[in-house]
Structures are given as C-alpha cells and as structure tokens.
C-alpha cells in the first residue's frame, strides 16, 4: 500500500474498523468530531451501526449496551464531553464491559479553549470516575500510531474487559501526515471472550479466569446473565459482603497490574550514553524528539523517552532510568501532571525537572532545548 495523507482522527476511525469495531455512539465536540464523522460514513458500509446520541452520557450508555450485546464498540469526545462520560466509564469498569473511549484533549477546565491543544486530562484519564478502579490509557504521537493504538486499545478492552482510553491530543488528532497503514494480515485482533461452561455446568458470568478476567456471556446467547454497577459476586448479583467487596476491588486492580509488563510500552532513543533524558508523550513527543536531536547535534548527551502507555504508569522503566541518568525532563502540555508520576517512580535517584506549557500553543523545540541546557547546568555533565 502506498503512502497517503491522513489525519490522526481519521486514522482512529480506520483503526477502529480494522479492529472489528461495529458500533459507535457519539456526540459532536471539537476537536474529536472527525472521528464520529468517519464512523458515520464507514460503519454502515460494513454492516455496523453509528448513532448520534442526545449527550455524552447517552453516548457511553449506548455503546455499553451494544458491547453487552456482543459488538466491539468505540466512542470519542473531548474535554467537557469526557467529563460527562465519567459516570459510565465507572460503570464499564465495575461491570467489566469492553469499551474504548477516545479523548482528543483540548484546553480546559470547563469549555476552556475548544480548538487549542492540551495534555491536561492525564490525571482525569486515571481517576476521572469515582471510586477505586483500574484503567488503561494509551497516547499516540503520529497518525500511523493513532491507527495502531486504536486497534491495541480495542484489543486490551476485550482482553481485560475494561474501559480503555485512547488519550489523543489536538496536535495529533488534527495533524495530517504521510501514513502507510499495515495490511489486514499484519493486524492482530483479540476476539470477544466467551463462556467456557454451559449454564447446566454451573456457568457463572463473573467467575474470573486464570488471568483474573471473567468470561461474561453476550446478551441473547441464552446465559441469562445479570449485569449491574453494584458490587457483585461471581454470579453477577449484588453482594453486601465486605469480603466480596474487597476481593472485587482487588481483582479490578490486579487484572491490569499483573499484566503491566505486557501493557506498558515506552519508546526510547539516544539513550546509550545519555546523561539526562526528556520524557514526553503524545504530540509533545514530536517536538521533544526534535529538541533531543538538536541537542545531540550540539554534543549534549541527551536521551529521548516516550510514554506510549500512560496508564498503568511505567514505574519500573522510569525507576531504572532514574538510576542511569542524572536527570529527567518531563515535557507536557499542562501545568504539571505526569511529572508527579515520574518523580514518584524516580524516587530521588535523579533530578526531575518539569517543562510545562499551557498557553494554547504547542512547544517549540527551542523551549525544550532550553530546559535541557538548564538541567545540564544544574546536574553537571555534558
């Protein structure tokens, strides 16, 4: 397949289709609308369903219903819409319903700056809905990766029966660039999990499998499953038991944390002799990469670290890095969010410096290069 120009948001729609998504519910909002528009056009061509709902809460509800009926599902939004979706993101976590939510981040809080880029929803992605829960969040830096991570997000949602957030930003969502999409036979698809027992054999929908994830039957397949947002036991019915509640919350976390090494992806470059490194993610990483390259050209021993997986956080990788380098710069398009995680993981083993921006514009390489120069002068080294 030859290269063509494609937009990040369009690549998400194409990726969703390739991943087997056959149901999308959404509500228009800048800067994510192109995803809904893409799905509205593409889905009916493959026998899939697109519906524009009355609000973002309904958009979440409708995709969760469709997921329970057996479809792979996607919804997409930004800022205020993502805030509205939080209620049912929690429902999806509790009832273990596979769903991918795309957040094309814009400047907030509230209506904020609707058309301007931001990476201010990092912590919302982790803790936006109430209560203890696990989450997976992935952040692409290119159009091709928007396609690939959409597929990965759908696969994780299915495999772990969890909400997965594709944490885009306006930079990548609206960027058009060359893209060569992988061929169909290069794409791996994780199929919907299916019951391993019949009702007669004592099937219980929420009995966890060896990987701590239950094989909940789809609606309409004769299993008479009960699904609820109340904390429930293995039968799926509500339980008031402290023991079951504790086990449930523990399993919610551990089904993801035990697979962390599989889920966590970090890309590095120029790290062999690096004395300091720049940590970034999403669209900002494009500028960080250019800044690191420019600094290298000046003879500075700077490395590049890109978080592909935002949640669960790359604790181990950052902890090891912190022992190797003298300092880490965290470049993010917000007042400082992921920097706290980096500090926690670095645990005092190296300096951690924030390079933050929140003025509606993206970083220029020079801004990150200045941070590199400053950190080098602070920690010594070249």
């Amino acid at each position, binding site marked *: 397949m030859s290269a063509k120009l494609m937009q990040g948001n369009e690549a998400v729609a194409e990726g969703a289709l390739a991943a087997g998504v056959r149901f999308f519910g959404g509500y228009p909002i800048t800067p994510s609308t192109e995803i809904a528009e893409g799905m509205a056009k593409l889905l009916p061509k493959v026998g899939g369903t697109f519906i524009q709902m009355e609000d973002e809460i309904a958009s979440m509800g409708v995709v969760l219903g469709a997921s329970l009926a057996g479809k792979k599902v996607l919804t997409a939004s930004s800022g205020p819409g993502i805030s509205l979706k939080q209620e049912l993101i929690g429902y999806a976590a509790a009832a273990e319903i596979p769903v991918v939510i795309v957040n094309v981040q814009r400047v907030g809080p509230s209506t904020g700056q609707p058309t301007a880029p931001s990476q201010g929803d990092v912590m919302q992605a982790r803790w936006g809905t109430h209560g203890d829960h696990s989450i997976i969040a992935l952040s692409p830096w290119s159009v091709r990766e928007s396609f690939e991570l959409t597929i990965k997000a759908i696969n994780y949602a299915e495999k772990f029966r969890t909400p997965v957030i594709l944490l885009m930003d306006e930079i990548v969502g609206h960027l058009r660039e060359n893209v060569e999409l992988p061929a169909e036979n290069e794409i791996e698809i994780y199929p919907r999990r299916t019951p391993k027992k019949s009702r007669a054999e004592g099937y219980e929908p929420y009995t966890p499998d060896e990987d701590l994830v239950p094989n909940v039957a789809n609606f309409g397949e004769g299993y008479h499953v*009960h*699904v609820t*947002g109340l904390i429930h036991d293995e039968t799926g019915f509500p339980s008031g038991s402290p023991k079951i509640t504790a086990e449930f919350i523990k399993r919610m976390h551990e089904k993801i944390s035990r697979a962390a090494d599989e889920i966590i992806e970090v890309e590095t470059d120029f790290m062999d002799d690096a004395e300091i490194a720049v940590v970034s993610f999403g669209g900002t990483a494009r500028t960080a990469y250019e800044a690191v390259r420019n600094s290298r050209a000046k003879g500075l021993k700077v490395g590049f670290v890109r978080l592909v997986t935002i949640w669960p956080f790359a604790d181990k990788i950052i902890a090891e890095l912190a022992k190797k380098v003298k300092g880490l710069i965290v470049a993010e398009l917000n007042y400082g969010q992921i920097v706290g995680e980096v500090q926690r993981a670095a645990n005092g083993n190296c300096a951690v410096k924030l390079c933050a921006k929140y003025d509606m514009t993206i970083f220029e390489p020079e801004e990150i290069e200045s941070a590199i120069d400053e950190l080098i002068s602070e920690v010594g080294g070249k």
Partner: protein
Amino acid sequence: MTERSYEKFFRQNRLPHLWCPGCGNGIAMKAIVQAIEKKSGWTQDNTIIVSGIGCSSRASGYMDFDTLHTAHGRAIPFATGIKLAKPELNVVVITGDGDCTAIGGNHFIHGCRRNIDLTVILFNNNIYGMTGGQASPMTPLGKKATTAPYGSIDRPFDACKLAEAAGATYVARSTAFHVQHLTKIIEDALDNKGFSFIEALVQCPTAYGRRNKIGEPAKMMAWMRDNAVMKNAWDKLPDEKKIGEKFPIGLFYKAETETYDEAYHHVMEIAGGASK
C-alpha cells in the same frame, strides 16, 4: 398449578424481593412476565430486561432473562445500544418516575423521538422510594416528601403526554389495581414495533402513602380504583367532572412509524453494508 406458570420467568434463588410489604412493584413486574408469556416468539433467551436505578429497577434482578441493571436514568441509552446491536432481540425497559423523568428525562424523550423499538414500563410510585421518600417530577402538587416537607410546589410531569409529544408510537397508562388491564396494555405494547411507553401507577405505602396519610396499601389501591377513569369514559366526561384526583387510564396514542433500526437498515443499504 398451571395458573402460576409465569413463575419460570423469575429467578427463584433471588426471591424474596426487597420491596416493602404492600408495594405495588411486584404487581407490575408480574404483569410484565404474564404479558411476555403470552407472546409467541418472546423467550427468556431472546428477551432482555433493562432497568435504571431505584425501587422499580431492582425488578431486573428477579427476572430470569439476560438482565441489565444500569446506572441512574440511563436504562434507555443502554437498551438502545442492545436493540441496535442485535435488532432481533426483544428489549423491555423497567424504570421509575425519578429514573425516567428526572435524571433520565433527556434520554426518555430522545428514545421516543427516535422510535427505538423498546417497551418502556414506568413504575410510577410518585416518590423516590429507595432513598426514603424525596419528591420526584411525578409527585403531585401539594403532596409531601422529605424534600417537600410543606407539600410539593413543583408542577408534575404527565409522562404519557410527554411520551406522545416526543414521538412514542404506543402510549398507555394503567394501575396496580387494574392488573388485568395493565397486563393487556403491556401485551399490546410488546406487539408495537417502535417506542412503547406505559405508565403503571403503583402504590408506595412506606415512603409516599404513610407520609401523605393515604393509609394502608389496600386503601391506596382503592384510591386507584375510585379515581382511575377509562379513556373512553374520560373523553366523554365534561370538564367540570374531571376534578379532584381523577385521572384517565387506557391507551392514549398509537401510531405506525418506521422504527430506528428499520430506518438504519436503509442507511446500510445505501452505504452498501446491509448484507454484511
């Protein structure tokens, strides 16, 4: 015991239910399964029960189908997703007056507007029962609630008129007292292709009746008997006789309009994916 054949529709191991003695929800729930039992082609395997949050919405847990106890107010969006994902399934929504007309009000009118092929049964007990008796958008004027200790001043919704105006294609009301009538209109609603809405008036002796000195459950049902007027008779009543607490029951509206899943099938035909 052939007259209790409907019991197979209940999850015996989930009973007894959590409703108070004298509550009308059980009557409405039984009317639903008796209506389903009469429908050839409606089985426990191809019928999905979806509910919101509140006393009424606990019904789904007792009913032996695939059942979905959603979040507060959100039953209709979830049910919409199920129906559009698998149009061959029959989808019934059980909701309450607070669930459907307050927190879920927007979803309710848009479900009606789209004419999604769902049967929505609102158990109207005029109060938030599960949280102990707060006023709902269907608490009558002047009635007391914990959040309206001096009597409610919020003008209540007529959920049937709302449904009709919003585009539902079957709209009817009955009560827990008129159980045969209630069962019959649910049966008719199940037959309707499109958004069917039924308001089932149910008594809440604990949180509504007691506070408003209406009395025992039996008295509350006697009130339904004495104040409900069949639609035909209601239409003939002169306005000066439509007084006090009298209200109409029966079928208010029925229309044949393309359902959302039928309309979407045309979209798929145009786009070329109808056979995929």
